[in-house]
Structures are given as C-alpha cells and as structure tokens.
C-alpha cells in the first residue's frame, strides 16, 4: 500500500517516471496547491522497493508493505540454468 500526503505533493512526477515496475500514475483529483498528486494504479506490480519514498523530494510518499503476500504474476519468470520456469 502507498500512502500519499496529497497537500505536500508539488507534482514533479519523479515517482511516476522512476518507478521500476510502472505502478504509479497521476490521479485526477487536484490538491491544495493545484497539482495532481500520484496514486497507485488499480492493477499494479508494486513490490514495495521503496524507491518512490526515497526519491520523493517532498516527503509525501510512505510505502507500507502489505501483510499478506501477493500472488506473483505469471509475467515474472525466473531463469535458472537457461530453462525458463514459471513461478
């Protein structure tokens, strides 16, 4: 889960552009400053790497890992010894 302090966001979109799994998008609700803060996509592959939290210059993002483990999407495959194994 990602918590966003909406009124601290300045809308630089660094978190959206730098997310390694492309899990964030800009929301369509304006905040107090008149910018669109980010939000987690409905379907996302967020693995709680906390990069957005570190790269946010305005301290607006908190990443809280979910308690229950997410089922791994079939897209991500481990390659072991040249053989592609579906996990």
């Amino acid at each position, binding site marked *: 889960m990602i*918590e966003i302090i909406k*009124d*601290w966001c*300045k*809308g*630089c*979109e*660094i978190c959206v*552009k*730098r997310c390694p799994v492309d899990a964030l998008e800009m929301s369509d609700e304006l905040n107090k*400053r008149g*910018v669109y803060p980010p939000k987690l996509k409905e379907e996302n592959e967020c693995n709680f790497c*906390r*990069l957005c*939290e*570190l*790269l*946010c*210059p*305005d*301290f607006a*993002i*908190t*990443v*809280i*890992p979910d308690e229950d483990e997410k089922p791994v999407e079939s897209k991500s495959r481990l390659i072991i010894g040249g053989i592609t194994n579906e996990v």
Partner: protein
Amino acid sequence: MSEEVKKKMIDANELRDKYLREGMLPTIFCNGCGHGNAIDYTFWAIEELGLDMDKVALASGIGCSSRIPGYINADGLHTTHGRALAFATGIKAANPDLHVIVFTGDGDCTGIGGNHFIHAARRNIDMTVILLNNFIYGMTGGQLAPTAPIGSIATTAPYGNIEQAFNISELAKALGANYVARWPISYPYQPIKSIKDGIAKKGFSLIELMSPCPTAYGRRNRLGNIEALWNWYEENTILIEDYEKIINYGTEEEKNSIKEKFKIGVFQDVDKPGFFGEYEKLVNMLIEKDDAKLKGGSQ
C-alpha cells in the same frame, strides 16, 4: 528479506516523526528541486548511525540549500553568506562532542566563502559538509556560480559561460580532506552510505551532491523538463573507477566521450589527524610541562 531485517527498518512515517519539523512542510523548494532528497538521505544516514539528535548541530549559510536546517529537528545556525564553515568551526571548538553537519550550496561554499572552505579542509576540522551543487545561485535569481559548466546560460552570462568551472571534490581531495565523495541526487543509496561514512569519519568530510535546479538553471539551459534534467545527471556522470580504466586502457574515441563528464564516487578516504585532536594534544603537553615547572619551582 529475513524477519529481523524487516522489523528493524522503520517506515517513512516514523522517520518523519523522528527527524522532520512537520510544521514547516511543505518545503519552499521548487517543483523538481533535489534539495528535499538531500534531507531525506541525511535522515536515513542519521537513522542508520543511530545518532542522538541532541548531539547533532547544524550550520548553514545563505541560499536554497541553506534553508535545510530549518526542516530538521536539531539545533542549527543559519549564518551569513559563505561563512557557514567558519561558524561550524566555532561550534566544534566550543563543544567537541557535537557532530557538526554543514549544509551549504555551491555558490555559498565555493563562491562567496571559498577561502573558508579551503582552510577548513586544509586544517582537517572534524565536520561533515553536505554541499548541494546545482551550478547556479538559485535563490537570488540565477546568477552564474563558479561551478557552472562552460557554455551554461545564466542571468549574468546571457551568451554562455566562458569561465572554467570549479571542481570542488578534486579541490578538497588536493587539500587533504579525510573523506570526499560526489554523487548525483538521482541515485539514492550511494549518497546515504557516503553521508553515513562522512559523519562517522573523524576529520573533514565533504559530500558533494549534484542537485537539479529546474527553475533557475534548467529553464535557461533547455533542461526545464524535470525528467530531462534528472536524466541529464545520469548521462553526464561516470564512476571514478570506470573513468580511470578508460583513461588507462581505452581508445581515443572512448577518451573523447568521457572528457566532459563529471566523475562520481568516493574520491578520498583516509585517516589523517585533525586540527582539534592535535590541539588537544598540544594543550595537554603544555599543561604537563607547566605542572612539572611549578613542582620544580616550589621545591
């Protein structure tokens, strides 16, 4: 990740509660400015070191970067332009138990206060300087800073800069600072480790963070797009190790391609005696000498 490690890592909310003056937020920094990241990285470094914030003193001069101590929940001095290092030397002299951290900018530290910087590094005074280099005097309206690369446009250089730029990290290395590192702000983990090493190190440590300035620098230099400016830092930097390999074994073409790039990495990591350590030794030696003399005289 094991359960133990998971428990040990605090989340950003706890980090903010612990170190940030939340009443001051949102920050005054422009949209896309990297100075906020420097605060965040410093928090993580302090958290990993486990420092007591009552034992931390901050100092800063004038400029965008010098607003940073206002956001950190520790005692700080917001001093005159360029004199942050002089005031920090005073703090350290008055109370050597404090960890002195100086936040300063490129214009503040090397432009206005260049001589203070040179002599603080030469005397190897025990402090950590976090220098945010954005190539411009951002707060006062975008005047040319001594660190601006050749050709960059500023309000005082409308046809492009023709002066050679200051290479702060190489200068500090030559002056014999104990720890010198340079990282762009767009990499999070390396600066955290460098700040951590710098605070733990006795003697002068300089961490130069290359921080993007979209408003005063980027806009005039066709880097107004925040994403383009952040990517610029990755395209125009090269690790010291790679740089040296190419200089020693590379082809002419490769050598030409890295000429304009900024070296990043840890420039220097040594353990030389600092000024206050030596001063303490000197004072103790003189006291002993004096005591012996007094004893000799009374007999």
